[in-house]
């Protein structure tokens, strides 16, 4: 097997594993639009990374983290509803990213790669970053699983029972931010949320416990990555969109199976 294909497979599998549990929280807490906004802002992070001459991966992570903090602050300080706020921030940051990039004539970047992913071009450094980031997020999610589940079920009850709700909520957002930065290279900013949401939604119909849903979402994500990469390899289709198409097909299939 060619090196680049092995790298692509490892990166895709790492993302699929961590996207299962994290995507389940995104579905339960209705944060899909939040994830979308962060991923749109990722392109602004890329632009700033070039502008300040730092690694795009680092710039995107920091950019997503800052936007997550900004969002939480804005939600508390002004009366606009969350979806309105997100609807303002998502296209604004994406557009600002494109505008900033257009000013940098000496930088040649593959815009399509950032928008839709460039899985087959992953190098050793990228792979290390993706594996390390995914592993860190996965460990944190497992350690914080019960408290995160408790605040998802009822925030005030969790707070009365002594959980640091605000910190946990922020931690979850930061984990999503890190995964988006990690996933950008794999499926691109425009497709990231689909990888979080589609496997979780497909697993939901047949899960009897939160853990089953998270695990099932990881498994479905792995299958989608394998199918998508195979399609890309044999039919020369773009890798990121192929993975998303495979995930969507699995989601449709989940309706054919009898429920529970």
């Amino acid at each position, binding site marked *: 097997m060619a090196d680049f294909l092995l790298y692509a497979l490892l990166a895709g599998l790492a993302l699929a594993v961590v996207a299962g549990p994290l995507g389940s929280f995104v579905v339960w807490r209705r944060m899909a639009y939040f994830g979308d906004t962060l991923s749109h802002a990722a392109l602004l992070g890329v632009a700033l990374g070039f502008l300040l001459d730092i690694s795009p991966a680092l710039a995107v992570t920091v950019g997503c983290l800052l936007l997550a903090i900004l969002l939480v602050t804005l939600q508390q300080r002004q009366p606009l509803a969350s979806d309105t706020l997100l609807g303002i921030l998502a296209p604004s940051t994406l557009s600002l990213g494109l505008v900033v990039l257009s000013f940098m004539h000496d930088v040649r970047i593959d815009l399509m790669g950032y928008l839709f992913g460039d899985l087959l071009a992953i190098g050793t450094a990228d792979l290390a970053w993706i594996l390390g980031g995914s592993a860190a997020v996965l460990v944190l999610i497992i350690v914080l699983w*019960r408290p995160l589940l408790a605040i998802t*079920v*009822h925030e*005030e*009850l969790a707070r*009365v029972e002594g959980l640091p709700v605000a910190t946990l909520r922020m931690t979850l957002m930061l984990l999503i931010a890190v995964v988006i930065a990690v996933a950008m290279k794999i499926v691109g900013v425009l497709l990231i949320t689909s990888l979080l949401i589609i496997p979780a939604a497909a697993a939901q119909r047949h899960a009897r*416990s939160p853990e089953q849903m998270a695990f099932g979402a990881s498994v479905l994500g792995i299958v989608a990555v394998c199918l998508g990469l195979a399609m890309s390899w044999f039919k020369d289709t773009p890798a990121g969109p192929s993975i998303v198409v495979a995930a969507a097909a699995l989601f449709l299939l989940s309706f054919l199976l009898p429920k529970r």
Partner: protein
Amino acid sequence: MSDALIRLEQVTVTLAGQRVLDNIQLSVRAGEIVTLIGPNGAGKTTLVRAVLGLLKPDAGSVWRKPKLRIGYMPQKLHVDPTLPLSVLRFLRLVPGVDRAAAMAALAEVGAEKVIDSPVQGISGGEMQRVLLARALLRKPELLVLDEPVQGVDVAGQAELYSLITRLRDRYHCGVLMVSHDLHLVMSTTDQVVCLNRHVCCSGHPEQVSHDPAFVELFGNHAPSLAIYHHHHDHAHDLHGAVVDDATPATAQTPTHVHGDGCKHG
């Protein structure tokens, strides 16, 4: 009051420019059932949130016994339909709870048959019992119940109140609950606090039910009207704010005495 679990002194809360709670005194002791009653918008839930520490008062102090274990039963529980959560898994969100402990708590509240049901699929009355079971699993010194009988039919309401009394007797915990229903509350509570942004009157149920402030707030619902009458120093307008009575000259003398437990000024 050395065995007080919580004590609120002169608590004032302002939300969005509106004074929701004004100069509230309240304490709950171990083994005592204190019931908050009052019309809609009287600030009952706000007061409960202040007791729980979910909300910081603008003035006054909220004292809790150090390391007080509170079992809280929220008004309702909405779990997103996409979250597959059984009653057992819900109860096990409390650290250190296994199936046996969860079953014991459910048996205590008479809801053991729903242990494996999804939380989205049980009835309102069953949900209230499950929430009570979760509060019990914390081995609480203080139970805080926000409208514990909401969505339960009349027979079930009486049963739930007597269950709460039994749990108090068994665990000797303090109970602070919010209620609309005067008749049912009267028989099961040690102290009634009648709230309308300020404490209108408080005391034993019989005393309170005779208090003019209570009669005025609840009109025909007051179980026995006007056993004794004294002149009341204020009236309430439609929004519940205190307005001067028609005869302020006599009413506003600072020395007038109310019935036992009257705390308003």
